[in-house]
């Protein structure tokens, strides 16, 4: 499979501040690639470089095999960009916003109205097509912003934090749209700090921290490598204290936390912990209401990596280079 994006040694300095530090990765055509990282990690800077909005200090970017620096015009025709802020013109109607973008992207005249109608219907905005977008809700503006980014049917779509601040219904309709576009062949580069979003949508994720790629892999393989983040969740009848010294001192428990009315005990070996936990409940005359073994979530992986703790990170790490193990930090 050909690569949609190839990034080599991509680096960005803001004056002397190193925002993106010699990163390497590839995105295959047809995949949904998640770019995860905490605020200030270098996500938006990387995405702005990939979309020609920012000039890299060093490194090369190839989009569908074309060098971004020398063939930016040809590349721009193939990409769509949904920035973090919904950048629609509030003074224009939804229809006029779409027509403007179609014209800027030189969508053939005969196809503009057809594409616009399809998109407005898909996004549930057809009835509002003649309404100025200043009267739109945040979710409606977001959907229109995405529609504007894809009216020219790009082969590669960049989405920067597409769902924060939206209601659950809007989030799911945007996720559904991303999946549908991907099924139709569009490669998606999804920059987000919403772990669940990446978990739900992405075939692979890269985790960026302090300007460096800390891990690249499928969500499931990343989780599998974090044995330490496995846990047993137990609920006892009656109130449970915030910290229970008895539970924390059980052999194999690395840490514990209270999650609602349950206690979560982190361990590398949940099956060994279970009998000890039952024994503990009996000795304390506690009745167990529920007991679950949990694998690590992508959020656990993300927090381990970006929190700078030890761990085994990914099988690919910086692509083409050996996997990074026992990082001791996220730099």
């Amino acid at each position, binding site marked *: 499979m050909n690569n949609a994006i190839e990034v080599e040694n991509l680096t*960005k300095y*803001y004056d002397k501040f190193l925002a993106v530090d010699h990163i390497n990765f590839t995105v295959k055509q047809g995949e949904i690639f998640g770019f995860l990282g905490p605020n200030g990690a270098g996500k938006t*800077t990387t995405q*702005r470089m990939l*979309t*020609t*909005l*920012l*000039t890299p200090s060093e490194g090369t970017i190839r989009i569908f095999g074309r060098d971004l620096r020398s063939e930016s*015009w*040809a590349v*721009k*025709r193939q*990409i769509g*960009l949904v*920035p*973090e*802020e*919904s*950048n*629609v*013109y509030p*003074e*224009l109607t939804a229809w*006029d916003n779409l027509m*403007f*973008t179609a*014209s*800027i*992207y*030189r969508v053939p005249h005969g196809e503009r109205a057809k594409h616009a109608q399809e998109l407005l219907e898909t996004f549930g905005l057809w009835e509002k097509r003649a309404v100025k977008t200043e009267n739109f809700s945040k979710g409606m503006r977001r959907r229109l912003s995405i529609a*504007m980014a894809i009216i020219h049917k790009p082969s590669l779509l960049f989405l920067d934090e597409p769902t924060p601040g939206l209601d659950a219904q809007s989030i799911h309709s945007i996720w559904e749209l991303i999946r549908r576009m991907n099924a139709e062949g569009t490669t998606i580069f999804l920059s987000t700090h919403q772990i669940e979003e990446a978990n739900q949508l992405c075939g692979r994720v890269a985790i960026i921290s302090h300007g460096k790629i800390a891990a690249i892999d499928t969500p499931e393989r990343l989780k599998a490598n974090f044995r330490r983040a496995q846990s047993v969740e137990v609920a006892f009848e009656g109130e449970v204290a915030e910290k229970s010294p008895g539970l924390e001192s059980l052999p194999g428990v690395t840490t514990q936390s209270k999650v609602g009315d349950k206690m979560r005990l982190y361990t590398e070996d949940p099956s060994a912990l279970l009998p000890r936990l039952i024994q503990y409940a009996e000795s304390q005359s506690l009745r167990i209401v529920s007991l679950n073994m949990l694998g690590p979530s992508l959020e656990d992986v993300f927090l381990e990596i970006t929190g700078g703790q030890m761990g085994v990170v990914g099988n690919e790490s910086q692509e083409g280079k050996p996997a990074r193990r026992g990082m001791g930090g996220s730099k």
Partner: protein
Amino acid sequence: MNQWLERIKNEWAQAWTVAVKDVRVYYLRPGMIMFGFLMPFFMFFSFSVKRELGAAEGVARLLALTVFFTAGATGPFIIPTERRMGTYDRLLAAPMSLLTLLLGKTAVGAFFAIAVSSVALLAGLLFFQTTIIQPGLLAAGILLGAFSFSTLGLVFGSIPTTNPGDVQMPSTLLRWGLLFISGVFIPLSEMSPVARTIAYFSPLTYAQDVMNHAVLGRGLINPWLDLAVLLLSGVLFLWPSIKMHQRARVLGR
């Protein structure tokens, strides 16, 4: 060859699309009305009322003022506003050259200046029965003046900021300065040799002179030279705008 012609056709259409969109979105914004429409008339009445000024001289002055102030008002307002709203990124990421985008933005200021100066001209013709000696030269002067001063405004608009106020104030200050050294309020012929030498460095001098030729039938500089300087200065002002946009891409602003 066909590919290049197609590209030029596309870029032309994109510049036009940008201009038409900006006309629809920004012309009625208070900032544009204040700095683009009211300011030249305010300046004219401030410095012309109760002074012994013939109707024709007044019309020539008003035309130069409206072209100058109105054309230069759009760039410093529209570009920072678009940067703040995030809509400018959409334009920068679109498949068109930076020059195309800037020419589209230039056209917005130029159209605005042509429209407002037409109002001024109409007022002169209706209320002061002014006769235009050289209508063709007047049209060329308004057109090229609008182009030159719009690209001058673009220089300020290209300063990477998201707050129009940051660039509107210095832009207005520069334009006020040029107003007093460019033979608008003091005719070139009455200036000292030093002041006149300075005036020759201001494009407004040539705009005022070409209006004088067109409306009064007299001027101090060859009208062809006036038009050539307006055209050339317009082209030259695009250069710092391009450089500042490229710099903004490096700085990430």
